[in-house]
Each structure stands twice: as structure tokens, then as C-alpha cells.
């Protein structure tokens, strides 16, 4: 009864939310019925409710000869993105918020967003120009006498993770900083004045006022980022990878694409994708609980 009363009281809000709820139901929940094919040997055009094979597709993935290589690559690339790519926009937002010149600040801010809108195809082309055996970097290194012959940055797997992490950072850091900049802009200016009166310097203000105020945002985004820990990229690997680097670039998503979609094993691809999503969901729930317990901040 309480729920009904509450619903009645908040009916205008519910009415306003209705289009979004419908959208989510239609495009996010309705297609999920297709997940049943993860437990079947599905053939396109045939019934969605036949040919059940239980957990065979999941077992098959764990028994794949490349399983450990794929999991290792996925986790390493994701962890690098999380360790470097997650704090970088916070740092950029803090630095930008300290800039006094509005023109300079706006210019840097706008320039930092640009890479986000460049497609990976173009980024790959830029990287080939920079890092190819005849690329600018090798040319400079050879010209300065630091190396005798070009380094095969794109031709040797050992460089792949570093290149990918750097490219992801360059591409996303500006755009990801927007949310932190808006969180910082919402901090009451009187807090800074009070801090200054109490003798805080610039670092003190950041440490004692800015960071605590944006903590909720940081935690929220961190929890969501944990949910995507198995999303290590897809286009990047396909565009920058080559047979030379396969041992370092093959991740779950590229594997699902090649063995699931390209070979027509949709059930297998769905099973691996479902497993990935379930791990992501578990991580989000766990991180949310830990955050609620230890930091009194959570997203649900």
C-alpha cells in the first residue's frame, strides 16, 4: 500500500520518466531474450527454443587452447586502462580547475576533447605514421644516434600493450575529464575561502576541499569502470594488431567476433559475451557494496 501511495504522490515524476523507462525496456531488456541461444546450438532461421546443449558453450571456452592468453590480454589491457586511464582525467580536471586564465583554460579544454571524436581508423593511421619502421619516432631515434636500426614498435607484441594504453589515454582523457570539471565547478566557493583563511595552500585546497567534494563522482565512475573490466577494446585491436602481435592483442571481444560472428557460431559468441557481462555485473555489485560499507557512497 505504501508503494501505491508513494507512486500516486510521485505520479508526475513517473510520467516524466515513462519514455526513458519504455526505451530501456524496449532496447535494453527486450533483446535479452536472445541470450537463450547461449545454451543452444542455434542456427539462424531456426526456432529459438530448440537444440538445447546446456553449458557446453561455456565449457568449450574454458577449454580453448588460447583461453589463458585471451584472459591475460583482456585483464592486462583493462587493468592498464584502469590504473592509468582512470586517474588521468581526474588529474587533468584538477589541473584545469587551477588555471586562472579563462582563455587558456577553455583552449586546452577544447583541444583535449578533440581526440575523442577521431575515429580509431584515423588514430591507427596516425600511429602507423608515427611508429612504423620509417615513422617519425624511429627517424628521430636513429638521427640522434640512440638506436642503430628502427625499433619495430608495431611489429613486436611486447610494445602492444604500452601503445594501446597510451592511445586510449590520449583519446579519452579530455572527454572523461568533463564530468570531473563539472563536479569541481559545483563546489561551493565559500569552502575554498574558508580553507584559505585556515591557511591552506593550493595543494591543501585540492587535497582537503576539491577531492573530498568530488569523491562521490570518482567512486561512482570507478564502480562503473570496474563493470567494464573485461571490455578491453575491439576496434583498436583489429586496426592496430597484426599476426605479429596476436599473442598480445587478442582479447575476449576480438575472439568472440572472429570465432562467434565470423565463423557463424552465434551461440558460442553469445555464451562468451554473457559470461563476460555476468563477471562485469558481479564486479559492479561487489564494488558497490564495498564502497557503501567503507566509504558510505554507492550507486544503488
Amino acid at each position, binding site marked *: 500500500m505504501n508503494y501505491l501511495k508513494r507512486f500516486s504522490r510521485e505520479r508526475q515524476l513517473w510520467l516524466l520518466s515513462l519514455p526513458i523507462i519504455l526505451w530501456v525496456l524496449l532496447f535494453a531488456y527486450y533483446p535479452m531474450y536472445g541470450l537463450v541461444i547461449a545454451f543452444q546450438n542455434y542456427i539462424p532461421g531456426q526456432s529459438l527454443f530448440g537444440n538445447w546443449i546446456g553449458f557446453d558453450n561455456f565449457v568449450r571456452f574454458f577449454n580453448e587452447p*588460447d583461453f589463458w592468453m585471451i584472459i591475460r590480454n583482456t585483464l592486462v589491457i583493462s587493468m592498464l586502462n584502469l590504473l592509468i586511464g582512470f586517474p588521468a582525467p581526474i588529474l587533468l580536471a584538477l589541473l584545469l580547475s587551477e588555471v586562472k586564465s579563462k582563455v587558456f583554460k577553455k583552449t586546452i579544454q577544447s583541444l583535449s576533447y578533440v581526440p575523442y571524436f577521431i575515429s580509431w581508423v584515423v588514430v591507427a593511421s596516425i600511429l*602507423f605514421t608515427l611508429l612504423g619502421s*620509417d615513422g617519425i619516432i624511429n627517424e628521430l631515434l636513429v638521427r640522434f644516434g640512440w638506436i642503430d636500426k628502427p625499433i619495430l614498435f608495431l611489429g613486436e607484441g611486447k610494445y602492444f600493450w604500452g601503445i594501446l594504453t597510451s592511445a586510449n589515454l590520449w583519446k579519452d582523457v579530455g572527454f572523461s575529464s568533463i564530468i570531473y570539471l563539472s563536479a569541481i565547478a559545483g563546489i561551493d566557493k565559500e569552502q575554498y575561502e574558508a580553507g584559505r583563511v585556515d591557511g591552506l595552500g593550493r595543494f591543501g585546497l585540492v587535497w582537503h576541499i576539491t577531492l573530498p567534494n568530488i569523491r562521490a563522482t570518482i567512486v561512482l565512475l570507478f564502480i562503473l569502470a570496474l563493470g567494464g573490466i573485461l571490455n578491453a577494446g575491439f576496434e583498436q585491436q583489429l586496426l592496430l594488431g597484426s599476426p605479429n602481435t596476436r599473442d598480445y592483442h587478442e582479447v575476449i571481444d576480438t575472439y568472440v567476433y572472429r570465432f562467434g560472428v565470423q565463423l557463424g557460431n552465434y551461440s558460442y559468441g553469445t555464451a562468451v559475451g554473457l559470461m563476460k557481462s555476468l563477471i562485469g555485473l558481479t564486479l559492479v555489485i561487489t564494488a558497490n557494496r564495498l564502497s557503501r560499507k567503507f566509504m558510505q557512497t554507492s550507486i544503488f
Partner: protein
Amino acid sequence: MSRKGSVLGTAMLASVMLLSACGGNSSGNNSGNTASEGDSTTPAVEKVNEFGWKLPQKTTQIHFFQAEKGNPDKINRKQAAFHDYLLKEFNVDIQRSSLDVDPKEKLNLMLVSGDYPEVIAAMDESQISQWKAQGKIIDLAPLVDKYGPNLKKELGSRYETYLDADGKLWGLPRGWGYLPIPDFTAHIRWDWYQEIGAPEIKTPDDYYNVLKQIVAKHPTNDKGEKNYALSWNSDVRIDSALGFWGLKDGYKEDGDHNLTHWLNTAEGKEGLLYYNRFFREGLMDPDAFINKFDDWKIKFSNERIAGHIGPWWQSWNAGHEIWQKTDPDYKEDKRFVQMAFKAPDAEKAYLSAKNTHGWNYTVITDKAKNAEEIIKFLDFTVSPIGTRLMGWGIPNLPESYWNYEGDGKWSFNETQKQTLLDGKLDFEKTETANGSNSFWLAYPQGLLSDDNKSTAWFDQNFIADEKWKKLMNDNVKDTIYDNTEQRVSFTNENPLTIKNQQVEDLVKTGFVKVIMSQSEDEASRNFDELRDKANKLGLKDLEQYRTEEYKKNLALVK
């Protein structure tokens, strides 16, 4: 009506019938390739065009999806004029559609949604088996029996190899037949080769020594960038690159037709160590395995490569076709010439594998309202004159590749031929006007049966007339071979399909690792390691499967 009127009317009707019958026979006999010989329901009064095609009374509609990636705008531009011509002259409304997406995904979407056209072209065996299992495509054998005299005549004994165990025909082959033109070769920068006296190249070592000498003479290009003796790009086919050591499409065949993968042969190891030598000595382009064709084209046209291994057209496209336009002092010797050699112990080199079975298939779906009429037209396109029309496009225009006078008499358009031989033919512009090869549904790419020298590819008809193509052909003709029976299909339901993909992935990565090894010992170790890994992963099972299929195919043609 008076008696006089009745007699006059009957006489006129008899005359018309006689004339039309004569006309039909005349055209048909001249071309010798009319379709619908078995059609007993055709009305007596029919119009027969100059190609001997009996125009259907109701327009035959063939709107087909071609399961190959293609830019829809380009396709529409190219087919528009030819579509109109065929509609006007043949009463056939034929239109192709393709999309810029993975065709496999589009076919699956069609299958799930039930939204697919009457005809689908370029389906592989795996897709055919999928569509057949769900009853979405029809058996063409009864239609071919009734309306496909040309199909049966031209395919000959090969026809039986397309039937399944129950004698059913699920698809008509596209691009079948033997076309003895080279694909894969070794290439050499011709003017530089002449400069050092054009020493004879008979073995891989000769090729290595010559390229090394050339690079010693031309260590850098005009911009001071390092030149390389050997290069290729990510399109390189490992199996073909090992053909110089006598391996056929990557396999060694013994007297009993057993096939052994190159990884399990001494020849395979010798080949990889050969390429590794180039790498170790700094003679190989270090980006050979990551060069996409367009990037490689820049490097190539910047005159940084002395030797190349790959399809013949790559060094044309990236070499003299660019230099002709950019170099004001261009001389015709500045180009790459294709050549072949073989390892001393090899019986011969096998570089261009020809699968005469065809690229893939055209199917008619259960949505076809008039499959008989569709088959009749496809049958016409398989006749020699029909193949010429479909392959070379609209005749008798200034932009046409050929002229057709009727009565089976045809000739090439000498102006276009000369433009081609001069290397100045603008294919895109010309083919927008004539529509050449816009609707490749069932006809062959092999030599046509009436003269045994024409082919549907216009530009491949003049190899003997064109100096450089003739040189290429003379150099490498012995390396072209028919490997039709070595074809193998990995369908979705085949349990070895995944294993095959896993082994291919492993081999691709391992191939690079062996070639990029820093010493011969390391390369040899990496090769052995790769072989053991591949065998553990199931390479032996794949060898066995391929051998069984090969023997099965050989038995079929006997």
C-alpha cells in the same frame, strides 16, 4: 466476313507464322546457343533478338543480392546502363544489390527475418548447406534438365560434381573453368635488374643474390630512405610463397595423393629459413607483415623495393601505373616484371593454384515466382555469346569492349583494345558505360568453348598482344596449375572448422616469428616449436581430412 476475306486473312496469318518461325530458327542457329529448348509452352509468335534470345512475353525479373562486400552507389552506377540495355533488348529486368557490410551477417539476417530476394549470388558451401537445411532454396536440377541445355553442355562432365548425394543441385557455380593466367609470382624491378646485367634466376638463391646486388647498387631512394631487397604486404599468402619449393597450395603430395602440411615437411622449413635470411641481413622490409596494401603502395611507389612476392597486379598497381602518371621522364623499363624459379630439389614451382570448380554459387530461393524464366536467362549467359555479352557488357558503343553484328559475328573494339594495351584504359569510366561483368551469376571465367581463347575478363584476352603481360606469362606459365580437387570446404557444422581456424591463427603468428628470428638457429627452433604446437592443436587431423576430401574429389572426376 466474306469467303474472299477469310482466305486473305488465313494466308496473312500463315505468312506471319512462317516468317516468325524462320526468324527464330535463323538467329538460334547462328548463335547456336539459344535457351529454352525444352520449353514446349512457348507461344508460336515470339520475338528473338540478335543474340538468339527469345524474349519472354512477361518481363523476367532477377533482382539479386550478391553476398560480397561492395559499395552500393558504385554498383548502381556501373549496372545502370547495362540494366536498361538488357531490359530493352532481352526483356529481363536484372539488378544486383550488395552492401558495404560483412555479407555473412547480412545473409544470416535475411535467414532469420525471412526477408530475402528470389536470387542470391556468391553463397559459399557452408551458407548453401545452412539455407538448404531450412528449405529456403530450391533444387535446380529439374530446371536445368528442362531449361538448361547450355549449362549442361558447357559444364560437361563437371556438372555431376555439383550435385549432392541425392542428385540435387542447390546452386549454380560462378566463375568456373580454367583460366591459365598467373596470379601469384615473384617480382623484380626490371630496369635495376637490367642494370646489373640481368643474371639468370633459376633458384631461390639466384633471386636472393640478384636482389642483394640490386640493393647494393641502390641502397636508398631519391629521398635518402632505405631500400629493401624484398617486401610484401599483409595480403601475402604463406601457402603460395612456399610454392617455389614444390608445395601445392601449402601441401606436399605423395604418390598415393596423401597431403602433408608444409609445417611437417623439410621443404616448408627450407622456405621459411630462406625468407628469414632476408630478414636477418636487413634485406627484408621490416613492415612486411604489418603493411596494409595502401601503406605498402606508398612505400613501393617511392621506389624503395627491389623484389616482391605476391599477386602480379600488386606491383603493376603500386609501380608503373603510378610512375607513368608521376614521372615526367618515365621509360617503360621502369616497372616490375613477374618471374618464377624453383628450389633445386623441387620437381617444379606451384604458384598460381586454379580452382576450376568456381568461386561460389548462385541460388534460387523459395520466394522465386518464376524460377523457370530465371534459369532460362542464366542458361543463356552460360552460352559463349551470352558470356561475352555479360562479361564484356553492352556492344557497339564507342565505350564498348566489343562489337556485335548479329549472326554470332563479333569483334573486339580496336580503340578500346589499343587503349588497354597502352595502359591508358579508364576501367571505371568505361565500365560505367558498358556495364561489363555487372551481373556475374553463373557464367565461367575459363576459356570459352567456341574458340578456346576468349574469357569474360576483357583485359585478359590480349596477353599475347601486350609485351609486358606476354613476358610475365612466358616467365611464369609453368607455375600455373589446376588444384580443383584440392578444394576443401569448412562448413559451420564441420567439427574441424574451429580447429582449422585455430591452426591458421597459430600458423600465421608463428610464420612471422620464424621469419623475424634473429639467427638461423633461432628460426629453426621457432619452426620446430611451431610445428609441434600445430600438431598438438590438431594439424594432423586437418591433414587427414584434406587428404580424404582430395581423394574423394579425385574419384568424382575419374
